[in-house]
């Protein structure tokens, strides 16, 4: 293709076309090398209210992120959703301008693994459905949920969506990654109210790669049973309690402190850990945590990261010992290891976990082996969901103070807690774990068993 060709709108992601265009522009601009991440998505979604369609949405979005190395080998980046010829030319110009301010102290390079074989191919052809089909499913779910109990009066937050996404990574060294993912999701957040009592709410979410396999009934049932269990509520006393984190809640907490495993955060001084923390014992011996982006239950799995590095399963904590970190190309180079497939794409590349898996190391005994969420007689607090993680977590200090939904359980009797907060330090939580149950439960954000922790501060209103 010639630079002066008449393409006004590239439209769909076309790797060959993009490579050709970028090759031309980089030659014109003395760009030493370049790489690019791009994504394209299409989705439809519906919301309902009282048996009627409320909002029906569709979208198609493209985005590219372009990184260039200028003649002084300094890196600049830009992103754009304007996939016209002019748009891409403007992006190249923007990246070149930004490269003048590239960080000479820490410059990224191509990932050494960007052309390695991928361990898993992901190319899902989505079977798209008519929006009326989605609408009818959601109307039916709303009705079933409201009918499930006389106190449930509405489902104010709900949605059903179906989407497909393409993602690619290419570079001037010949790397060319491509994947296609299909995903469906439903969320139901219902409200219930009984006379002379406060309104209560609860919700749940389900994800699948195929709308027809989305487990809508379990989403309805979980929301309903959870909400019904919150109808009878009481304030609790401020005290230190034995706490059992449900899998979702424990994963929320770990994810909020994932900077502990993040090499980028460690280098930047933003983590609770430091460069000498690998090999240190930071938790009880029976705790294992890994990041497994390619786990079969991860419906949002990507098989390569923003730098084209294959996604890998990484053991983070084994037997309570910090064993590995999550890396980009630049952080891996600094630590003398290989990138792990957890990078974004940038002049300063971010790092993040994919899919956390918490498990019990059976080589070690639980401190309180008799504890079990369904049969324990002791009084404990069962934490269902944490809130306000964006503001109540001090990741660099290791502390948290968070509102939560949950129950106080005594002799097997569960009573919803009216309003309360939980506060503590993540390392104390890790070291006060008294039981990790055997059964691992898959959630939409990872896998974890129920985890029991002793002596956690709970503030109540009693």
């Amino acid at each position, binding site marked *: 293709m010639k630079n002066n060709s008449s*393409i*006004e*709108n590239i*439209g*769909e992601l076309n790797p060959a076309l993009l490579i050709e265009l970028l090759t031309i522009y980089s030659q014109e601009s003395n760009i030493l090398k370049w790489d690019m991440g791009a994504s*394209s998505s299409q989705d439809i979604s519906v919301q309902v*209210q009282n048996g*009627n*369609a*409320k*909002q*029906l*949405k*569709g*979208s*198609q*979005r493209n985005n590219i992120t372009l990184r260039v190395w200028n003649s002084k080998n300094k890196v600049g*980046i*830009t*992103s*754009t*959703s*304007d*996939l016209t010829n002019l748009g891409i030319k*403007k*992006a190249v110009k*923007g990246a070149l301008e*930004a490269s*003048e*301010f590239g*960080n000479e*102290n820490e410059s990224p390079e191509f990932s050494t693994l960007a052309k390695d074989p991928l361990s898993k191919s992901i190319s899902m052809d989505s079977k798209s459905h008519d*929006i009326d089909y989605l609408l009818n499913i959601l109307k039916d779910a709303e009705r079933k949920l409201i009918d499930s109990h006389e106190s449930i*009066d*509405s489902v*104010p937050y709900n949605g059903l969506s179906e989407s497909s996404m393409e993602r690619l990574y290419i570079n001037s060294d010949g790397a060319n990654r491509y994947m296609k993912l299909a995903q469906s999701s439903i969320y139901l957040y219902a*409200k219930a109210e009984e006379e002379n009592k*406060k*309104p209560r*709410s609860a919700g749940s979410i389900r994800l699948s790669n195929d709308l027809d396999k989305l487990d809508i009934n379990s989403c309805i049932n979980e929301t309903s049973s959870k909400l019904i269990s919150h109808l009878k509520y009481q304030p609790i006393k*401020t005290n230190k309690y034995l706490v059992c984190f449900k899998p979702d809640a424990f994963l929320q907490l770990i994810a909020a402190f994932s900077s502990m495993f993040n090499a980028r955060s460690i280098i930047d*001084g933003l983590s609770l850990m430091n460069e000498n923390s690998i090999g240190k014992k930071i938790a009880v011996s029976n705790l294992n945590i890994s990041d497994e982006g390619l786990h079969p239950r991860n419906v949002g799995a990507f098989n390569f990261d923003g730098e084209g590095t294959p996604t890998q399963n990484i053991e983070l904590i084994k037997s309570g010992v910090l064993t590995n970190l999550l890396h980009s190309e630049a952080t891996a180079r600094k630590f003398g290891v290989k990138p792990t497939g957890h990078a974004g794409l940038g*002049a*300063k590349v971010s790092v993040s976990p994919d899919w956390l898996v918490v498990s019990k190391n059976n080589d070690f005994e639980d401190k309180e082996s008799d504890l079990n969420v369904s049969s324990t007689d002791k009084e404990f607090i069962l934490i269902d969901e944490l*809130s*306000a993680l964006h*503001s*109540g977590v001090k990741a*660099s*200090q290791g*502390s948290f*103070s*968070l*509102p939560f939904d949950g129950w106080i359980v005594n002799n097997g009797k569960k009573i919803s807690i009216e309003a*309360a*907060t*939980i*506060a503590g330090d993540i390392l104390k939580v890790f070291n006060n774990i008294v039981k990790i149950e055997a059964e691992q439960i898959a959630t939409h954000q990872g896998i974890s068993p129920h985890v029991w922790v002793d002596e956690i*501060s709970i*503030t109540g209103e009693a």
Partner: protein
Amino acid sequence: MTNQKDKHLFHIFDETIKSQIEELLALGKSSGADLVEIFLEKTDNISLLSEQSCISNVSPSFGIGAGIRVFLGKKDGFVSTNDLSKGGLLFALTQALRMLGLEIDSLNKDYFEGLSNLKDFGLNKDSWLNECPDLNESKSKLINATDALSRENKNLQVRRASYSRNWQEVLVAATDGVFARDIRLHQTVGINVIAEQDKNRSTSARRYGSSGNPNDLRDWDIEKSSFELNQSAQNMLYAKHVEAGQMPVVLANKFGGVIFHEACGHLLETTQLERGTSPFHDKVNQKIAHSSVSAVDEGISNYAFGSLSMDDEGMEPQNTLLIKEGILKKFLSDRAGSLRTGHARTGSGRRQNFSFAAASRMRNTYIKQGQYTPEQLIESIDNGLYCKSMGGGSVGPTGQFNFSVEEGYLIKNGKLDKPVKGATLIGEAKEILPRISMCADDLDLAAGFCGSVSGSVNVTVGQPHIKVDSITVGGR
């Protein structure tokens, strides 16, 4: 997605595309839709980050897109696209119509009378982008900021300063004749530090933001910000965890206003009324707050982060009195909210970008100032908490809110005492508003971002110092 390679792209937002937009709107209206709205957007953003004394990230980004919304009765279909070719927009329009069971009837063009003359709110703003600091000037300012932090205190482990410039050009056209264009410029600077000493760590952060002021970064008083931030970090370094319980609190002005934003503001958006989740849905002209509380939401304050010349539905913003001396007066409403709840539009239809349908959202929201001095509020408390700096917060679906305290001090016998950390305030909107018993005379505003149904939008929160008679303080 369309593959059409149309010669004409909807990339110039002015009168020259009027006839083409009218053609699209007429096609949409021919289907029998009640109303069709097209929102076009271009963005030109840049962000820089300085860490320690080095620029570590410069990220320009550009965007284009369109959102097409069709109303039929009380429901609506919305489709967004990056494809601003004529074919791309026609495809999006067809999709939005089909969602509502409508089809273009090209023979039927009688229903649309055409657009009004362009109302150009962006007329005197075309130079804004060029008037903003360039990359060199921005870089220098940020490095000055991190250096100033270093001068304040050599023991700061992490020093960061960031700058974001978000330039947006929008055009709104609808079959009720609305045809309006605007240019928006939002800039934010943020600084944060981590202080460390004797194995104690504290973090402190500040963010400042403005709209429509190209000189905002140039005018930033670095020395003052650095001093305040360092003071806060040092004060919190040896702070003990707050003891949990129910207690009276005094919330400082500026970002303390997040309590009203979360505990009340969201519940006064018609978006919440539509869902049936606002406890105030039937309380207009009734008392919902202490008589010391009057509150407004407006989009007109000069340079305030939540100010607008027009909302994202082409309507000029208003100064909306929400609460007068404790009595609920008005809700915030957008086009859909007005249609579904009957509350008149207030110029509050806002969206993060083209990929969201507009919804009723807050702009500059604050409690009006009262008659007391801040000292009088503190003197009125024997044992309580002074929240000098607030973190973020959120509100749940039934009105329960929470927010974190970044910098807090105990109040003992009417005086400020030791610093405390780790406090989270929780409560129910209906219960807290009547407990705001004293408002000081020092109203001030602070910039923030608010995430909700139509994405993340720029807002201002604000208040004078206020006293809440009793609130649950989560701690240890």
